């Protein structure tokens, strides 16, 4: 059953081919058997999951079950889950059991989904390799010597290893799309404000957005339908009509205009990755799409702008971790200042500290205009590039990541090399646009991701385009070697 998609699981449950309790028990058993190799879960919620499955079976028996009734999914460990450990990949929250559910979790509960556990991630979502997690790195199911990408590496690996059919994730600079690319699955980051951030532990509030990890675009449509909601508890959430994402999946893409930014095909792009992306574009052309070269002239400034804005917002957001109200507290503090400093010094890892320090520097007196304000102005220029481009094209495409999955340790000592992993994904966050990554083939034995960028609130178009590609190609059905012959 583990190779079934969400759409197939929904059908199987509603037709009573299997019960949610059978499915959930099998999912849990498989996680316990397989996941020690990959470490994609920080915690597995056997008891909670089986209770939810039992309740789901009761609803299914009555015949009025909600959309995801009885389907096992995983939540990234950045979403607060009432009564279930929520660590954000940090020692700071190693003991944090939230007294409430995030809105995203509420929405999944209302849809009848079964939460089997919380997925591993870079500490406070800061990283592109999952090497900064306090709970150990996640191994890429395609090659356990390689990283799964990050920060949502646990969600990506869990879906790629077919431990779950879908998982939630978050994306601040590429944290859904890059791990989806490196693990050969479908990742969707919606428009900023489409999904509520309430109860999602904040990293950079003006960039953070929750989305989905699945094997198919159809499943992403089903999950987004559940996640998207206007929420008055998140003041940055946008009250915009929610499309029926499945309704347009089968629309023809004849006449679709695809923009290819010349800046996304330059120096630093692995030739194998470039070849797979270009083949995918040719596939779209054969399906009736037109291709147009475009320019996003401020692209080279997106990484520098991001590494001012994200650390600045992180340093403000992470000031809440003080060892007083929740989270890690140091032993025997001499005084209040010692309590703050040692609790934070012991609770945060190196990358988190580095970003807090960069952020504190960028926001400090005398530097605010030169750094934060300047970056916010550049951000508008980057957004304007996209606004101009979307006057002529329907969708923008390019590589998700400059290379396929890389080996552990190969970039962890060089923050700049790690930051450049997100060179093609960061601009989308700065502009607040929706983006996806879908599998488009292999380089050697490692998957490559094709990135799709859409206009504001045009998730339905992205999903339609991705779905049509997946109807015509088999790349999304490719699975890691260890799953071969495993049914």
């Amino acid at each position: 059953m583990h190779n079934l998609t969400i759409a197939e699981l929904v059908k199987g449950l509603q037709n009573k081919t299997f019960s949610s309790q059978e499915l959930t028990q099998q999912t849990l058993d498989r996680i316990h058997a397989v996941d020690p190799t990959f470490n994609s879960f920080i915690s597995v919620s056997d008891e909670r999951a089986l209770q939810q499955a039992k309740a789901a079976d009761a609803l299914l028996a009555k015949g009025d079950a909600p959309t995801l009734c009885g389907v096992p999914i995983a939540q990234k460990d950045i979403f607060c889950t009432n009564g279930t450990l929520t660590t954000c990949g940090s020692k700071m929250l190693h003991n944090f059991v939230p007294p409430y559910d995030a809105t995203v979790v509420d929405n999944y509960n209302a849809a009848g989904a079964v939460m089997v556990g919380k997925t591993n991630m870079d500490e406070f979502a800061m990283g592109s390799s999952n090497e900064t997690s306090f709970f150990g790195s996640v191994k890429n199911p395609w090659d356990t010597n390689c990283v799964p990408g990050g920060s949502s590496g646990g969600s990506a690996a869990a879906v790629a290893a077919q431990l779950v059919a879908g998982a939630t994730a978050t994306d601040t600079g590429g944290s859904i799309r890059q791990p989806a690319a490196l693990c050969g699955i479908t990742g969707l980051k919606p428009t900023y404000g489409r999904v509520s951030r309430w109860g999602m532990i904040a990293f950079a509030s003006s960039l953070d957005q929750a989305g989905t990890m699945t094997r198919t675009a159809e499943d992403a449509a089903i999950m987004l339908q559940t996640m998207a909601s206007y929420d008055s508890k998140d003041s940055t959430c946008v009250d915009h009509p929610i499309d029926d994402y499945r309704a347009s999946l089968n629309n023809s893409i004849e006449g679709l205009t695809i923009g290819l930014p010349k800046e996304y095909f330059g120096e630093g792009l692995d030739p194998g990755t470039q070849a797979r992306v270009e083949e995918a574009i040719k596939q779209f052309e054969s399906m009736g799409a037109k291709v147009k070269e475009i320019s996003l002239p401020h692209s080279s400034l997106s990484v520098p702008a991001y590494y001012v804005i994200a650390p600045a917002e992180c340093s403000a957001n992470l000031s809440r971790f003080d060892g007083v109200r929740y989270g890690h507290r140091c032993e025997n503090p001499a005084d209040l200042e010692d309590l703050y400093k040692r609790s934070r010094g012991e609770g945060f890892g190196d990358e988190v500290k580095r970003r807090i320090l960069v952020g504190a520097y960028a926001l400090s007196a005398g530097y605010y205009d030169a750094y934060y304000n300047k970056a916010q102005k550049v951000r508008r220029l980057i957004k304007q590039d996209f606004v101009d481009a979307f006057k002529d094209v329907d969708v923008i495409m390019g590589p998700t990541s400059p290379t396929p999955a890389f080996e552990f340790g190969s970039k962890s000592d060089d923050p700049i090399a790690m930051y450049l992993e997100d060179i093609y994904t960061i601009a989308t966050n700065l502009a607040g646009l929706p983006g996806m990554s879908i599998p488009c083939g292999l380089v050697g034995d490692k998957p490559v991701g094709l990135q799709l960028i859409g206009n504001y609130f045009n998730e339905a178009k992205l999903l339609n385009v991705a779905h049509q590609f997946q109807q015509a190609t088999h790349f999304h059905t490719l699975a890691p070697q260890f799953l071969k012959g495993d049914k």
Partner: protein
Amino acid sequence: MEPSEIQKLANLAMLDINEETAKETASSITDVLALIDQLQAADTDGVAPMAHPLDAVQVLRADNITESDQRDTLMTVAPQTDSGLFLVPKVVE
């Protein structure tokens, strides 16, 4: 950036870091600052800073009570409490 400057920043950010970390951080932060200095070359004259991608403004609501008191529940996650208060080391002599 010098390790002493890192220590000063760490102090402002209420982070305890040892000498070794300060030294390592000084060199990596110098690289990060060089990266973000590329922004200075951009012509941003007359460009307004962008805080929300859709330029949304702060949502306000009527000042009505909407939440019930959950003090005890919310304090269950605190490291040390007493009679509904968070405990910290003595601040005033």
